[in-house]
């Protein structure tokens, strides 16, 4: 199993990565997640303007044989979606950290404390598999 976990990002137990820049969070799925899913063939993410609540689902990512929900890592409003990625979701397999899904303008920065560091996420991946 791939264990590429960049230090500069934060993570969730739902295998999403988050890049924090001020009150903007850029969200994707981790290398571990893309490897577990296999060939990604379909992606559905919300349009800009959508309000997201922590822990709810905001979209789906599908491989040939599976469907996985995407969970909101931080509450806020979608300010941009990576529309190009929906046309070529296989990019996530080749570059999980270069393939962002959405950008969220955070509404509650205290939620940042819930995120995992790279080392915590690595431990989480090792313990769950």
């Amino acid at each position, binding site marked *: 199993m791939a264990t590429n976990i960049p230090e500069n990002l934060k993570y969730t137990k739902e295998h999403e990565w988050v890049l924090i820049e001020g009150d903007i969070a850029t969200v994707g799925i981790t290398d571990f997640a893309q490897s577990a899913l296999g060939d990604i063939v379909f992606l559905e993410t919300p349009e800009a303007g959508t309000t997201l609540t922590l822990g709810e689902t905001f979209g789906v990512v*599908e491989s040939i044989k599976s469907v996985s929900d995407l969970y909101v890592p931080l509450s806020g409003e979608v300010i941009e979606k990576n529309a190009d990625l929906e046309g070529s979701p296989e990019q996530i397999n080749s570059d999980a950290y270069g393939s962002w899904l959405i950008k969220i303008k955070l509404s509650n920065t205290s939620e940042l404390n819930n995120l995992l560091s790279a080392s915590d996420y690595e431990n989480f991946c090792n313990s769950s598999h």
Partner: protein
Amino acid sequence: MSNFKTRLYDEHLKLNAKIVPFAGWDMPVQYTSVKDEVIAVRQNVGMFDVSHMGEFLVTGPDALKFVNYILTNDITLAENGKAIYSPLCREDGTIIDDLIVYKFSDDRIFICVNASNIDKDFSWMQSKLSGFNCELVNKSHEYSLIAVQGPKTFEVLKSIFTDLEDIEYYSVLEKGNFIFARTGYTGEDGFEVFGTHEEIIKLWQQLLEKGVAPCGLASRDVLRLEVCFPLYGNELSDEVTPYDASLGWTVKLAKENFIGKEALSPKPVKYKLVKLMLEKGIPRDGYPVVNGSGEVIGVVTSGTMSVTLGKGIALARIDIDKVPADDVFLIDIRNKHYPTTLIKKSFVTGGHK
């Protein structure tokens, strides 16, 4: 109880296969990528460990008579050395299993059944034996089985078994302890090779050295769905008859007598199985099918992304009295209705001979 493992299990671990539980077995679901494995089989050659499947042998003077009595298809139509696909039905016409019968001779018939149904099939067949002068033996633990599939199958097998004959599709021959059957579950040319555990492990290693791609259950499911082969547990079940699953062609009502004949003679149909293709969205097992007015009319029994077509494909079971006259079928994916195209033949045409 822990799951069974095939004798090739260690080979799968060596190849870093992803292992999943399936029908009580720990089976490889994929080795590299589902996409690459599907492409290997469609364009080149791949191999599947399907040792979990069951094998029965019927021998004796009444072997042909017995097997023809318990199946809906007519195996007297098969010459020696030929294979026939058939449902195994109850008196009420519902399907116990679907299987392939290999007729070596009238008094020696080999049957390959689904892994999940081995015990159910065997006890059913045993209960029907009385009055027939033949013996039924469950040989499932004696055989391992590799399905070698794809256009280059014969070429690669011939390089290992130099005297292998180029037999026709749905034919079978015995060589030493091996049984070579020109059958499969992918729509491509291929052989299913039954043999002793030791010989099959060796064959697996030989095939690997020759560059045959190991393929898992996930690609196998995509391949069979692309060519619209039914799967027991999805299209076929204890609840439906062959007519409900577009298998009317396997019910030979002209046969003098067989289990289920009375119930199947009026050709009862509760469902129609349809083939649907989507430009957008991927259908999955259990998704509802709706008509143009949004009314639920059926359910997806098998759905996937077709690797070969790059489109979503589905087999769906539609209530016979709700089949829309306008052929408009939509699939409900997460509460959105996606339009489909009704396909008449199969999604993909395999290259089998």
